[in-house]
């Protein structure tokens, strides 16, 4: 699983830090490094850009995995440089941003836009694989998720926009239902495509979603 991000335009970041002169920078060694949006190279490039804007970078770190609890410890280790800053720019996905936010009182500024949670298909090629809907139907859709792979999140088959197996919104993208159809046909399970899917429950777990994993579970 990878959190796929892209860098915000620098002008947007600039606006967000308008009133701050001393800044601490955090990158992420996992997803954002792989997508080349918040690894060591990108953090150093950001440092240069900020310097050119006349900002002082009090320090920087690339945390191995910015979304896990280690983040609080890493911030504590660099306490002096962090304390010295007026804000932290986080070059990680929104999970990393929120993790930093929960371990630090001063303003936290995202430098990336989080696009989706995806899988890698080929080198550098990612696709959105799951929308965390709370009631997985992959067992009936040949392991392909129509909620994310179909532009409209349809459940009962292709819309009239399917064009030679491509989606009406983008001729470069496959129509989810052509993929599902071909796979089910190969598996001799086309009857699953004939099955009526009733309206989906979009409140399986109403937002805000939270859960508590109990220690006795799994025993």
């Amino acid at each position, binding site marked *: 699983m990878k959190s796929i991000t892209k860098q915000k335009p620098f002008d947007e970041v600039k606006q967000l830090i308008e009133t701050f002169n001393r800044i601490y920078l955090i990158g992420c060694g996992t997803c954002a490094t792989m997508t080349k949006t918040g690894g060591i190279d990108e953090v150093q490039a950001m440092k240069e850009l900020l310097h050119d804007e006349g900002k002082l970078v009090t320090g920087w770190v690339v945390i191995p995995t910015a979304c896990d609890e280690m983040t609080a410890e890493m911030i504590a280790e660099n306490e002096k440089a962090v304390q010295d800053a007026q804000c932290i720019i986080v070059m990680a996905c929104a999970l990393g941003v929120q993790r930093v936010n929960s371990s630090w009182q001063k303003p936290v500024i995202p430098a990336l836009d989080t696009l989706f949670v995806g899988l890698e298909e080929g080198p550098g090629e990612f696709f959105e694989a799951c929308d965390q809907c709370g009631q997985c139907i992959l067992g009936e859709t040949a392991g392909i998720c129509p909620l994310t792979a179909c532009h409209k999140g349809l459940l009962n088959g292709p819309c009239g926009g399917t064009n030679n197996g491509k989606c009406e919104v983008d001729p470069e993208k496959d129509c989810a239902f052509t993929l599902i159809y071909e796979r089910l046909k190969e598996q001799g399970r086309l009857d699953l495509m004939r099955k009526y899917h009733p*309206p989906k429950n979009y409140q399986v777990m109403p937002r805000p979603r939270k859960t508590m994993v109990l220690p006795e579970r799994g025993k």
Partner: protein
Amino acid sequence: MASKFKQALNSGKFVITSEIGPPKGTDLEKMYEHIDLLKDKVDALNVTDHQSSVMRFPSIGGCLAIMERGGKPILQMTCRDRNRIALQADLLLAYNKGVRDILCLTGDAVPVGDNQAAKGVFDLDSVQLLHSIRQLEAGSDLGGNELAGAVELYTGATVTPEAVPLEPQLIKFEKKIEAGAKFFQTQAIYDLDRFAKFMEYARQFPVKILAGIVLLSSARMARFMTANVPGIFVPQELIDELAQAPKGGALKKGIEIAGRMIADLMENSICDGVHIMAINREEVVPDILTAAGISA
């Protein structure tokens, strides 16, 4: 009471419908003109629901205008802009105002339209919308709660006889029938032999099929649609025919072609009727009917 449109289809008569696209804004004059021009010449007028995801005056507003002016409306409902609460509520309103015929559609994608940052809803899909109507007819809403006064609606849907690949499209067509779709409007068809093959398959189901007739106004439009519109294939002979029309005569040729196709479908009883779409050229629909040998 059954709608006039349903009665017409069940009478075995070759049914003609056409389309009204509500305006972008509150000036309804042009729409009124089109309604007045067509209301007595066709069996029903189908009102588009923010077609191509372009924000407009609402479909139900167009239907009310048609009824006020003595015509028979078919309400198009897409799943793009309303969740199930809003869709059900609008169905109650439509029924209460006397609308009896509903065409259930998925709806085009938001990014093809003119409010491209909008949230696409698609809480239901077209098959689920049809099922929802069955539930409203049975006296309860989608939450299973009892209604004080139900609806009774004649529902239809769309099918693309030349979709590629075809089988998933036909599976969905059958799901729509199981969900109570009684009439179908097809994507534009131009190759009558291929359409006749589709009809051989479709005839095994107890549904009425209206062939989609989209007016070709130039060879360029015909080529563009073949290249860009899913499931539309204009045969080369028709493109050539349009290209060979005298300068300024392509539209006239397009009207002749549409008329000829309708006459052919009607004389050979290939389907149950036609739905004529003369996008932005509603005023020539009577000419198409004349070209088809239909006088109203």
